[in-house]
């Protein structure tokens, strides 16, 4: 396997990772902490939205993020033929 091939794989991996880390940051630090007062104006069922993000939503989002990453990386491994 040549160097360019490996570095293209790595670049694509990094781009995916950074995108997902942005989401990670927004759902927890963004919605759960920095914007919590604004979001608390919105009420969903018995939950204030900001409170919901901090105590429920962020965690659900984390789980989805990791499984999405797993799926995308498996596809990436196949595309670049670096599967184990």
């Amino acid at each position, binding site marked *: 396997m040549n160097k360019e091939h*490996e570095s293209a794989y790595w670049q694509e991996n990094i781009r995916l990772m950074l995108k997902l880390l942005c989401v990670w940051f927004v759902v927890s630090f963004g919605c759960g902490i920095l914007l919590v007062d604004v979001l608390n104006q919105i009420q969903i069922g*018995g939950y204030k939205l900001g409170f919901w993000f*901090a105590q429920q939503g962020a*965690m659900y989002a*984390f789980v989805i*993020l990791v499984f999405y990453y797993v799926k995308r990386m498996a596809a990436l491994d196949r595309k670049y033929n670096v599967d184990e």
Partner: protein
Amino acid sequence: MELQTLTYIVVGITFAIYIGIAIWARAGTTQEFYVAGGGINPIANGMATAADWMSAASFISMAGLIAYFGYGGSVFLMGWTGGYVLLAMCLAPYLRKFGKFTVPEFIGDRFYSRTARIVAVVCLIVASVTYVIGQMKGIGVAFSRFLEVDYGDGLLIGMGIVFIYAVMGGMKGITYTQIVQYCVLIFAYTIPAIFISLNLTGNPIPQLGLGSTLVGTDTYLLDRLDMVVTELGFAEYTTQARLSTVNMFVYTMSLMIGTAGLPHVIIRFFTVPKGRDARVSAGWALLFITILYTTAPAVAAMARLNLMNTIDQPQAEQNLAYAERPTWFKKWEATGLLKFEDKNGDGLIQYTADKETNEMVKVDRDIMVLANPEIAKLPNWVIALVAAGGLAAALSTAAGLLLAISSAISHDLLKGVFMPDISEKSELRASRIAMAGAIAFAGYLGFNPPDFAAGTVALAFGLAASSIFPVLMMGIFSKKVGKEGAIAGMIAGISVTLLYVFQHKGIMFVASTSFLGDLPQNWFFGIEPNAFGAIGAVVNFVVAFAVSKVSAEVPQDVQDLVEHIRIPSGAGQAQDH
């Protein structure tokens, strides 16, 4: 059946299973002892990781903290789950690809320096030992409360159990036991939550119950709780922040990167067959953890509401009379964790935020989860189950930590530094002796807890966040950072964190030596000492990059190693070398 008999039966059965597994899965090689032969199925590994991660603190203390801090308690929820996103994307697959046994081993090879490895070992041992003391204390408290024996006897029984299955089975035995322990603890945590949620809201799913209306009314549970606590002068439950937004931000970040840097968690990802399995495994671990962590806020809010409803009534003259207090109240009074003082002499219990009139002079936050089923008047078998769950949580974490400590001593120090020629058999014996020694040492500290026992758990996170996490990240994502940078970075990061903690909490937590005092106005940007790990990590990164700029370039073979771990193909089993 009597609660006591039931507790003995439930706890006895679970322990018989743990020990049976240890005998069945006895480790024969160092590879089996350290990384379970690298052949654990990712879902099973995820479950074991979850049990390893969720300690007595998660099981017993966390919901109590949230019940007390309300919205401010979210830092623990987001912090202790968000770290797994970092683990899955930034660390686990690459460290697994590296294919060795321990975290210091990676740091030593990547930064081509024995010094770096030793510094990492020291960080690891300090972080793990401080953490394990807390677990030992939890084991002692849980055993003594539920088996109604002396604290010391409870601790001894617990040490004996951990000794048998951790020392014999190694990682292989621990992994299988932890899978069973996960099932026990998640069952024990969710069953009472479901019952209580049904009672209060009619919704059997606690995560939804928390956002529902109370049975027979149009009032939402959270609105009702906000109303009750504010009437009594406490801060509003759903909006009370922990000190400040900046503090909450930094605290959450510290817990996240501390989680991703804790060696006993990282080590678990060396046990799966392939790098891709490490990613999947982190996903499953997070899912299994999230089941408990999303239930916790519901448990917290409902426990707080039940406690208030039991004691305090809208009209003060209808408050609960002390003479008519329920059995759980008396039981916890006996432990000294709950205290009542009839200040106005009317025989009724008043629970308010005002120090002058509050008559519940002590409500220890740690009793919330354990007392919760009794407060809600749930059947005895549920209460017995909670006892078994709490013990499973404490034992599984203690075993995982002890394995991380023993492998650091026998593999990194003994084989890596002092006796490179040691045979596999001797190394295995050494690691068992190291683990037995660690149990005895932690047990001793459990008997004579130093006055800093509580503070050190936070320090364990701070240390991992400020030392181990940054060098692992730089080791994988940068080819520019060399040994000088890594060593300087680790030392700088740890020192800054320790200095900040010590200047406010006292040197080695002896309060009289804290030269700046533990006062919020002296805190750097209002950041509490427990939350300072993230700042230490920033210092670590900055110092490491700055030093690397002026020191020698990273050798070619190490640059090749970094490229090698970035690509999944060509990984072998976790191998001996």
